[in-house]
């Protein structure tokens, strides 16, 4: 039977769907190793497209050896778990993860501000124009100002992430709060709820799954700002390591790092989806 890939009404089987979904991965991996073999045949010292063995060695170094700057000689006597805990990737992940989590926590006030802007007319009048203006500022353009104002320590990097993502979250939450049907708010009032109860017990509860989705969709921008901050001024972190290894053409470690960051983001995204389903079983759009 002929398959028309441009038929909207087509119904591929589960097996076909699963197989098709892996085709581009397989193709990408195949092309990579073909290129790697070709380059290494021409130049056995090539560092741009590492071989499988080089990648495996890079992963081993990243996961089981400490960073060069740590110079930890006692690691040889440790077991695997202890070695992982002292490893380069663990240290970098912990440093980046801490910044990432602090930024995520700082988005909570952003959500609350968005809720208040969307519901309370006076708060809306005070903040809407300002947040809209702030949203148009390219966060990376204020990076020098942040470094001057807050120094090159943690605060400037966290502020960069918050400034980059918070206006979007505020405006998203505001729109979501405004989108709650008026009937629900009126119903709340007629059921004896005050403005606070309507805001927190009716509107916030109803928009929470969508707010979590908005945060989920902003994980990548958040990570982007984290990487920008770390690449410019940091002594640890995933992006710092990638920037450092770039100078030494350390593609055997950079590629595993890039995949590790993608895996972390995928896991956080998956965890948020799962939490959304568990916390909001009534919500069907996740």
């Amino acid at each position, binding site marked *: 039977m002929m398959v028309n890939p441009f038929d909207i009404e087509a119904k591929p089987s589960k097996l076909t769907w699963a197989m098709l979904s892996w085709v581009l991965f397989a193709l990408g991996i195949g092309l990579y190793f073909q290129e790697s073999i070709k380059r290494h045949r021409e130049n056995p010292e090539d560092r741009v497209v590492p071989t499988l063995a080089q990648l495996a060695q890079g992963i081993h170094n990243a996961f089981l050896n400490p960073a060069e700057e740590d110079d930890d000689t006692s690691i040889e006597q440790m077991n695997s778990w202890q070695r992982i805990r002292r490893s380069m990737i663990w240290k970098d992940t912990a440093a980046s993860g801490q910044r990432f989590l602090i930024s995520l926590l700082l988005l909570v006030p952003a959500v609350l501000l968005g809720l208040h802007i969307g519901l309370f007319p006076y708060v809306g009048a005070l903040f809407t124009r300002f947040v809209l203006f702030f949203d148009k500022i390219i966060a990376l353009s204020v990076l020098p100002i942040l470094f001057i104002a807050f120094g090159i320590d943690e605060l400037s990097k966290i502020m960069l992430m918050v400034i980059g993502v918070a206006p979007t979250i505020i405006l998203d939450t505001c729109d979501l709060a405004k989108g709650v049907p008026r*009937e629900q708010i009126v119903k709340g009032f007629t059921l*004896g709820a005050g403005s606070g109860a309507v805001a927190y017990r009716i509107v916030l509860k*109803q928009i929470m799954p969508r707010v979590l989705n908005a945060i989920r969709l902003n994980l990548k921008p958040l990570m982007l700002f984290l990487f920008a901050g770390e690449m410019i001024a940091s002594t640890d972190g995933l992006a710092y390591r990638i920037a450092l290894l770039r100078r030494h053409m350390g593609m055997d470690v950079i590629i595993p790092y890039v995949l590790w960051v993608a895996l972390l983001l995928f896991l956080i995204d998956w965890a948020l989806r799962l939490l959304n389903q568990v916390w909001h*079983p*009534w919500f069907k759009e996740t």
Partner: protein
Amino acid sequence: MSAPQPIFSDHIASANGQTPLTHVSATDVSLSFGNRILFDRISFSIDKGEFVCVLGETGCGKSTLLRLILGEEQPTTGGLVVSGKKIRGVNRNCGYVPQKYSLFPDRTVLSNLVFGPESAALSVLSRFSSKSRERRREIRQEAFSWLARIGLQAADANKYPHQLSGGMQQRVAIAQALMMKPSILLMDEAFSALDPNTRGGMQALIHNLWLQTATTIVFVTHNTHEAACLASRLFVLAKKNSEASTIVLDESVPFSRDRFADRRLRSEVLELIHRIESYSRGAFSDAE
């Protein structure tokens, strides 16, 4: 067989233990949005315990009239008094059952039912005291008794609104509103999304609840059959001589409650439906 007796005056009097009292009073109320005048100096009053159905063509302002009574809209001019008070903002003594979004989707049936009484009776700080726990238990018991009253099972208490049929959702919404013992229940096309069978059941339910609770009900509908079946009084809105809408028919319905089952009334009911339809189409000049 004796002629059917109007029962409403008795019902209203018994509900209050005295002569009927005015519940809603509108005097020369006008409402405009920008240049568009929706109501131009309309006046009406609704007595306690009445079941008023508001009819009219689409866009004539039925729901807006309801929102005026609810306090969602403020009259541009004129006075509107509900339960002896001029309303500013949403009137928290009203029960409200809209056509859509009538339940909180994030709450179970039980949580929807207890939301109002718990909000009214329990403050956030006192929520964990033993007295509050006792009150909360009472509210839950009352919610379960309402569930039985509206024909739902105890097992339905833990379902979310999306797990219920449209008719069940509206039953819960009515119970949710009546649990607050509102002085007036406002229903905005509350049954219009239901299929005819469910709708018939809902009409019987709201009628029985009205008889039991003697709550004043203002019921917006575009279904003349439904209005003739339920109302103790009818308002028909239409545009008269201008763009503004007005109440072109304000009529008490003098039939017994069993008006559809009673074959003797069929011709009178049909005549009433015909009259409502004439008025709502704007053919009131001919009817007059």
